[in-house]
Each structure stands twice: as C-alpha cells, then as structure tokens.
C-alpha cells in the first residue's frame, strides 16, 4: 500500500450512509425548498398554487415530525467522490448496503425494492442494494459521500434518445420537450429536468443522474449549455403542465445539462425528470 493512503473504514461507510439516507428522506435540501418558494411566488394559477403550498407545507411537516417527505422513499443511490489519497475497502458495497438497511429500519422508510422484477412477491424490506457511483475529486485524505433517493414514478418517465450527430442542440431540445409533454405530469412536477449529452447510451443517463447533484439555480460552466438550460427552462414552463400537473406557470424548477465526450457516430441524450422532492444529502468523510 502507498504510504499516506487512507482506506475508509467499513463502519464509517455504513454509518455515513445511514445518516445521509435519513437526512435525504426527511429533510428537503435548502436549494430545492427555495426553488419551490420562488415557484409559488411566480405561479398565477390557483390550483397550482394550492399544490405548491401543500408541497412546501409537506417539507415542514416532514422535518418537524420526522416523517419521510414522500411515501415512495425511492431507490437509493450513493455517489462517492474519492480524494487523491483516499481508498475504499474491499467490502465497500456490503458496508454501504448495511448502511441503507439500518436507515430503512431507523427512519421507517418504505422498502420499495424487490429482488425479482418479473415475479410477484412481497418486498424484501431493507432497500438494498445501494446503487453506487464512484469518481474522483480534489479532496486529499477525504471523500465526499452523497445519497440521492429517487422515486419510482418519476423514474418511469426517463428518456434515452440516440440522436443523429447532425441533429445537434435543436434535436436535444425537441427530445426534451417531447419527453416533458408526454410524461411530465406523471413525474410529480414542478420537475428538475436533468439532461446528459454525450458519452454512450448508459453514460448519458449516468450524466443526467449526476446533474441532479448540482445545486438548483447554478448554471453550466459552459456558456452554450447555460444558454440551452435557460432556453429549455422557459420552454418547459410554457407547456403549462404546472405543479402536480394541475395546469400552471411553473412546470420545472430548473434544467441541468451535463456533457461528456462521445463517439463521432453518436449523439446520446439521456433525460431524467426528477420529481419536486429532489432528495439528496452530502457529507465529507
């Protein structure tokens, strides 16, 4: 082993996952709550205002009464950004799974995860396995853990479009707007629309998923993507779907676009419509 390399302890991984899964499930992140409040300020339609008030009140009740924000406590993802001098132990997945099993019991989370998708049987009761995504960051002897809880209803609205390279940003916009129009009302709007462009089929969806970790209100560092985000946000809001699909001015809280290198023959676009309960929590360990 390289000298100075810190291997994270299994117990620390488990307890961090437990803590983050609890926080994500019960405590709506401040940027998301701010986004909902801004949406309420901007909304003119009474039914959509009714839904937004209820969603904001829901966040308060969840926090106060320690109740999950949504009965669909979701599929749990763990994003690990490893610092330069940090490593994971061999039994990392098992340690992370222990963390989510403990959280399920401790915070009374619903286990929505079933072992065999094609047969009909009861749930397994522990929300494992945790879906793990690992990359690197500039931290030194630390790592950043983020837990994301993603509901099944909005997951069903996910879109993958293998566009022709020549279709460019116009093709991307068309794909996103069509997805929102066809499925947006089912994904618990106001949505956070996260788009991955580039990589391969699996990779563009992974990018879109990671886009959900970016704070709401923060634009892409690439100017042309930032412009595209703004443009799509106003066009998505112009659909009139509104909060809870009841008709209104705000259909999305934000649009994020993440990009990665791709193949010359390809223009993969992954589209994730995340519900208004964008549940995530982070911690440096």
């Amino acid at each position, binding site marked *: 082993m390289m000298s100075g390399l810190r291997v994270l302890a299994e117990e620390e991984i488990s307890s961090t996952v437990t803590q983050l899964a609890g926080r994500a499930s019960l405590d709506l992140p401040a940027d998301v709550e701010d986004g909902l409040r801004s949406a309420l300020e901007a909304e003119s339609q*009474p039914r959509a205002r009714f839904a937004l008030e209820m969603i904001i009140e829901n966040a308060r009740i969840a926090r106060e009464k320690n109740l*999950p*924000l949504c*009965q669909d406590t979701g599929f749990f993802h763990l994003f690990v950004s490893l610092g330069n001098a940090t490593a994971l132990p061999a039994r990392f997945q098992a340690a992370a799974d222990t963390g989510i099993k403990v959280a399920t019991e401790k915070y009374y989370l*619903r286990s929505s995860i079933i072992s065999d998708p094609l047969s009909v049987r*009861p749930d397994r009761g522990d929300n494992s396995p945790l879906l793990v995504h690992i990359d690197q960051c500039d931290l030194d002897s630390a790592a950043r853990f983020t837990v994301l809880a993603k509901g099944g209803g909005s997951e069903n609205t996910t879109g993958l479009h293998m566009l022709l390279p020549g279709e460019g940003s116009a093709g991307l916009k068309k794909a996103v707007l069509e997805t929102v129009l066809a499925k947006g009302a089912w994904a618990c709007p106001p949505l956070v629309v996260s788009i991955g462009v580039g990589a391969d089929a699996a990779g563009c969806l992974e990018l879109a998923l990671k886009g959900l970790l970016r704070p709401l209100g923060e634009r892409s560092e690439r100017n042309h993507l930032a412009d595209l985000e703004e443009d799509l946000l106003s066009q998505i809001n112009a659909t009139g779907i509104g909060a*809870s699909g009841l*008709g209104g001015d705000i259909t999305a809280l934000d649009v994020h676009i993440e990009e990665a290198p791709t193949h010359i023959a390809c223009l993969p676009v992954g589209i994730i419509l995340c519900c208004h309960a964008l549940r995530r929590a982070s911690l440096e360990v």
Partner: protein
Amino acid sequence: MVSAAPNMKKIKLPLDRKTREKLRAGDVVLLEGRLFTARDQAHRRLVEALSRGDVLPLELRDEIIFYAGPTPVPEGKKSGSIGPTTSARMDPFAARLAEQGVAAFIGKGPRSQEVCRALAENGTLYLVAVGGAGALLGSRVKTIRTVAYEDLGPEAIYELEVEDFPVIVACDLQGADIHNSNS
C-alpha cells in the same frame, strides 16, 4: 396551513351517488372517513379474483380506493407517510373495479380519456391528491390497518380513517377532466 383552495368543501364519507353527481372537476374537497389503499399488485389480485368469480376480500360499493403504498408507521405515531401514486398504471383495472360500485379513485396525474369515460358511466369519480406530499397527507390519517393481501407489504390493502384529507376532483360524472381541457 394550506389555504388558497377555491370551493373547498368538507365531505363526510361514504361518498354517496347524490354527492358524487354534484361534484365538478376542479372542486377541492376535504374528505373525512374511510379509504382503502390498493396499488399495482392488489389491483392485479382483485381483478383476478373477479375473473374467477371469487368473493373479494372487501366490499367495494360506495368505497374509495386510494392508489397508495404507505411507509411503516413509526413508533408512537398514528401513521407514516402516504400519498398518491401514478393513476395511469392502474388504468387497465379501473373500469373493472368501477363496475363494482367504487365511489372514487384517488391518485395522481392524468389518465386516459377512455378510463375517465368508463368511470363516469359507472358513477365513479377520479380524484387527485398532491403527489409528493406524503408527510402532510400522512398527518391527516387517524388510523391505518391491513385488511387484505398482507404478504404484499406496502402494496397490501390498508383501511385508513382520514380527516381533512385534501383532494381535487379530476374527472367528474359529467365527463369533465381537469387534465384534458378538450373534454
């Protein structure tokens, strides 16, 4: 508190046919009384039982079916979180259950025009609750108990007693649908 609700009405359940006739798409109502949960797998079982001619584990006439799967009830609390799931997934089963005299379904999101029409023909309303407000809606639940298909866990049929439970009429008996302005 949730305030700005146009035409807010309090309704004591059961929701009889006369009351159903009067409700209009867009009305916001607060329900008080009994709801039964049923989602994907429970629907499959109920409709299979009807196809076999079996007696259902519960009487559906004038009852409300809530498309929902709750979180476990935390110690010392009356209910966990509970809220509507996507109604469109239950579209294939809706007409069959409406024929049994179901007063209303509660879910979220648009459903097909054929389903809304079939519901209206059977005198069944489609109500929507706000999706992702499970903590708020759960705090309006006074009691919860399992009544059928316990092996399905969160997908079992639960009986709920609710109070001030806010829903919006999405499809009324005249055929109006708030999700589809053409109707």
